[in-house]
C-alpha cells in the first residue's frame, strides 16, 4: 500500500472517530461517562422540534421617558416650593416636554435658574404666554432621551432574565435585538400561558393608604375627590375559584414602592393553609416602613401591584422589623409568581409581545419522527438507485453518502448548531444533492472508459475533470446558504446551517473519501476493470 493511501486513510479514520465521539451523546447520553457528556453536547434541537416558546417582546421605551419626566415634575414641584418660588403648576406635556406655569417674569427667571442648576439634562425652550400666565417650557435633551430608552431596554432584559431564571426553565435564551426588542426562547416549557403572564407583568408594587372618607360605591359612580383614585381589590373564592373585584378608594400618593424590597418569598399560613408572600425590606425600606406604620396605626394600607389591590390590611401596630406580608387570596402558584416578580424587580416600561411561536412537545416529537422517516425513506431510495445504476461504484458512492449524513450530524453537534424542522429538510436535500458530485465523477469516468482509457487513467481523468465543475456548482449553492444564514431567523437559520454543512461534508466525502476507496482497491487488488 502506498504511503499516500495510508495518510489519506488516516485522515478519514480520524474524522470518522471524532464524529463518532461527538455524536455519541446525542444517541445515548445517559450511559456515557460524565467527562464525555461535558466535552460534547448532544445535537441541539430547535424549539419547533423539542417544543417550547419563542417570544419577541418590544419594550415601550417611550413610557420610561414619560416616567422620568413625571419624576422630574414631582421633584421640581418640591424644589420650587422649598425655594419659595411662586408658581401655578408644573405639567408634563407630550413630546418629552414639561411646562412650569408662573405668574410673572421674575418668578420665570428664578425657575430658569433653579431648573438649569438642578436638572442639567433639561433644555429650556421658548416661553409662551397663556391667558396672562407665563409658561416656561423645558424638554429632555436628545442624548438623555436616548440614554433613558437604552437603559430601559437593558434593564427590562435584566429583569426578564431574573424572572425567567426563577421560573425554572432549562437553557433559556434572552437576547437583545435591534429596535428595543428582546428575544426570549424557553425550550420545553409546559405552561406557556403562565410564562406570558409572568414575563409581561410590569410589577410595580406600591403601598397606598386607603381613603376611608370616600364610599367606594359612590366612587364607582364617578364621585372621586381630587387626590384619590379608584382601584379594585381582587378576591378569589378559595372553594369555587371565582374571582371577584371589590372597589376600593385609595389616596393618590404612593407612600412607598416595591424597589425598597430585598426579598420576597412564599410562605404557607399554617392555620388556614393559605399561601402568602413574605417581603423583606432593605435598610432604607425598613426605616420608611417603620415611619409609615407608626404614623398610620388603625388605618388601612393597600398593597397594590400593577394597579390591582392584592390586600388592604389594617395596620395594627408599628412594624419595625423590616418585613411585611401580602396575604391576598391567591393560589399557591399565583403567590409563587408574585414572589418571583417582586424579587426580580419591576419592568421599567411596559412590554408588548411582537412575536410568539409556541410549539407543544407532542407536535415537536411528531415532527422529529416524521422528519426521521422521510430522511430514511429518501436515503434508502437514493442508495438503491445508485447501487442499481453504478453497481460497485454506486456502492462506493453510497458509502460516501452514509458517511456524509454522519458527518453532517456530527458537525451540527460540534458547532453547537440547532437542528430545526427545515433543517431536517436541509439534510434531505443534502442527501439528494450529495450524490451529485459522485454522479459527475462517474459520468466522466464512463466517458473516459469509452474512449478506451485504462481503469486507472479513466479514474484519474474523471476526478480531475469533474473537480472544478463540482466546486463551481457547490460554491454557488454555498453562497445562497450563507446569505440565508445572514438574513434568516430561527428555523430558517437552521436550514441554512444544515445546507452549508451538508455541502462541505459532501465535498469531502464525494471527492476525498470515494477517491480513497477507489485507489485502495486499485492498488491492493490490481483491478483492471471498473464496475461502473
Amino acid at each position, binding site marked *: 500500500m502506498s504511503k499516500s493511501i495510508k495518510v489519506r486513510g488516516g485522515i478519514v479514520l480520524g474524522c470518522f472517530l471524532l464524529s463518532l465521539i461527538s455524536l455519541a451523546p446525542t444517541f445515548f447520553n445517559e450511559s456515557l461517562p460524565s467527562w464525555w457528556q461535558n466535552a460534547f453536547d448532544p445535537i441541539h434541537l430547535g424549539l419547533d422540534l423539542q417544543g417550547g416558546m419563542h417570544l*419577541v417582546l*418590544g419594550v415601550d421605551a417611550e413610557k420610561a421617558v414619560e416616567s422620568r419626566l413625571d419624576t422630574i415634575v414631582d421633584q421640581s414641584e418640591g424644589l420650587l416650593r422649598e425655594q419659595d418660588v411662586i408658581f401655578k403648576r408644573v405639567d408634563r406635556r407630550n413630546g418629552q416636554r414639561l411646562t412650569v406655569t408662573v405668574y410673572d417674569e421674575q418668578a420665570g427667571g428664578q425657575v430658569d435658574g433653579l431648573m438649569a442648576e438642578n436638572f442639567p439634562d433639561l433644555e429650556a425652550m421658548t416661553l409662551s404666554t397663556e391667558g396672562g400666565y407665563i409658561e416656561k417650557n423645558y424638554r429632555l435633551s436628545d442624548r438623555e432621551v436616548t440614554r433613558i430608552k437604552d437603559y430601559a431596554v437593558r434593564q427590562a432584559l435584566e429583569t426578564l432574565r431574573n424572572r425567567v431564571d426563577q421560573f425554572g426553565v432549562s437553557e433559556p435564551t434572552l437576547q437583545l435585538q435591534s429596535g428595543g426588542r428582546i428575544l426570549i426562547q424557553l425550550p420545553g416549557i409546559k405552561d406557556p400561558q403562565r410564562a*406570558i*403572564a409572568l*414575563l409581561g407583568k410590569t410589577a410595580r408594587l406600591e403601598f397606598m393608604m386607603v381613603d376611608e372618607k370616600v364610599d367606594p360605591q359612590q366612587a364607582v359612580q364617578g364621585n372621586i375627590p381630587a387626590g384619590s383614585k379608584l382601584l379594585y381589590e381582587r378576591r378569589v373564592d378559595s372553594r369555587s375559584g371565582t374571582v371577584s373585584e371589590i372597589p376600593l378608594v385609595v389616596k393618590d400618593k404612593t407612600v412607598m414602592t416595591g424597589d425598597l424590597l430585598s426579598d420576597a418569598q412564599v410562605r404557607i399560613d399554617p392555620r388556614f393553609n393559605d399561601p402568602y408572600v413574605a417581603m423583606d425590606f432593605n435598610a432604607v425600606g425598613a426605616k420608611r416602613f417603620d415611619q409609615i406604620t407608626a404614623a398610620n396605626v388603625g388605618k388601612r394600607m393597600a398593597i397594590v401591584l400593577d394597579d390591582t389591590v392584592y390586600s388592604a390590611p389594617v395596620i395594627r401596630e408599628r412594624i419595625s422589623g423590616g418585613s411585611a406580608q401580602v396575604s391576598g387570596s391567591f393560589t399557591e402558584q399565583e403567590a409563587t409568581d408574585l414572589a418571583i416578580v417582586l424579587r426580580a424587580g419591576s419592568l421599567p416600561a411596559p412590554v*408588548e*409581545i*411582537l*412575536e*410568539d*411561536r*409556541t410549539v407543544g412537545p*407532542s*407536535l415537536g416529537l411528531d*415532527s422529529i419522527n*416524521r422528519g426521521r422517516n*422521510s430522511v430514511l425513506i*429518501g*436515503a434508502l*431510495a*437514493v442508495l438503491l*438507485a*445508485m447501487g*442499481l*445504476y*453504478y453497481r460497485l461504484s454506486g456502492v462506493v458512492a453510497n458509502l460516501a453518502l452514509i458517511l456524509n449524513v454522519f458527518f453532517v450530524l456530527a458537525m451540527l453537534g460540534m458547532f453547537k448548531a440547532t437542528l430545526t*424542522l*427545515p433543517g*431536517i*429538510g*436541509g439534510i434531505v*436535500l443534502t*442527501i*439528494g*444533492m450529495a*450524490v*451529485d458530485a459522485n*454522479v*459527475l465523477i462517474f*459520468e466522466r469516468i*464512463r*466517458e473516459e472508459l469509452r474512449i478506451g482509457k485504462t481503469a486507472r487513467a479513466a479514474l484519474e481523468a474523471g476526478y480531475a*475533470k469533474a473537480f*472544478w*465543475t463540482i466546486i*463551481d*456548482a457547490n460554491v*454557488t*449553492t454555498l*453562497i*445562497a*446558504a450563507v*446569505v440565508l444564514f*445572514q*438574513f434568516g*431567523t430561527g*428555523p*430558517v437559520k437552521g*436550514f441554512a446551517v444544515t*445546507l452549508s454543512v451538508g455541502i462541505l461534508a459532501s465535498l469531502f466525502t464525494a471527492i476525498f473519501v470515494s477517491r480513497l476507496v477507489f485507489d485502495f482497491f486499485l492498488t491492493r487488488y490490481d483491478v483492471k476493470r471498473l464496475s461502473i
Partner: protein
Amino acid sequence: MELIKPDINLDFVGKRRMAVIFSAALILIGLVSLIAKGGPNYGIDFAGGTLVQVKFVEATTAKDIKVALKDLDLRGLTVQQFGDEPNEYLLRAQESSSKLEGLSQTIGGALDAVYGADQAEIRRVEMVGPQVGKDLRKKGLMAIFYAMIGILIYVTWRFEFRFAVGAILALLHDVVITLGIFSLSGKEIDLPIIAAFLAIIGYSLNDTIIVYDRIRENQGKHAKQGLEFLINRSINETLSRTILTSGTTLMVVLALFIFGGGVIHNFAFALLVGVLIGTFSSIFVASPLLIFWQNYRNRVKAKASA
C-alpha cells in the same frame, strides 16, 4: 446500467422557441393569478396575525369550531383541516394580539368552554405582530436579492458575464414560476418558503453551472459548428448526470413531501416544484439564453456597421 446512450443527440436547442412559449405561459398564468389575488398570499410570518393548531380528542368539523369561536369575533378567522386528520385543525386570524394576554389563550378558553376541558390540545401557536411581519418580509426579499448578487459575481468571475446573466435570468424564471404556482394553488408564503426558494436557487444554479461548465470546456472542440451545436452537444453530454441527480433529489424531496408531515408540507411542495422547474430551466432556459444574447449582439453589430 445506462439510461442515456452516450451518443445521444436530442435537439434541445432547436426546441427553444417552444420552451420559451411554455415558460412564458407559465409565468403569465402565475402573474395573472398574482395580480388577480392582489399579490402573494402571505402567511402570518409576513402579513402578521395568529395561527393556532389544535388537536381535538374527538373528530369535529370546521363549522363546529367556527361556531365555538363565534363570540370572540375574530377578524378574518379561517378554520382549516390539518393534513388528513379529522381531529386536527389550523385556525388563523388576521389579528395579532397586541396585549400580553394572547389571542391563543382566549381561543383555548373558548374551545374549552364549548368542547369541555382537555378536549382540545393546543399544539402550536404562532403570533406575529404587523411590524415584525414587515421586517421579516423585507429581510426575506433582501436575502433573495443578495444571494443573486453574490451568485452573479461568482459566475462572472469563474465564467463570463453573459453566463452570469443567463444563470440569473434562469433563477428569476424559477422563482417567479414557483411563486405563481403557489399563488394558483392558494398556498401561503411563509419564512420557510423563502428558505425553500433560496434552496431552489442553489439547486437550479447547481444544474445550470454544470451545463455551462461543459459548454466552456467544449468551446475549443466545436468552435466551427457554431454556438447552437456547442450548447446542444454540452446539454446532451451532461444529460445522464442531470437526469440521475434530479431523479435522486426528486426522490428525497418526494419522501419529504409525502412523509414529512403537515408542518413541513408547503416547504416540501416548494422544493418539489423548484426541482422540476430548475431542471427544466437549466436545459431549456439558461443555455438557450446564451444564443438569444449572441443573436441580439449580432443584430446590434450588424446595425452599427450598416
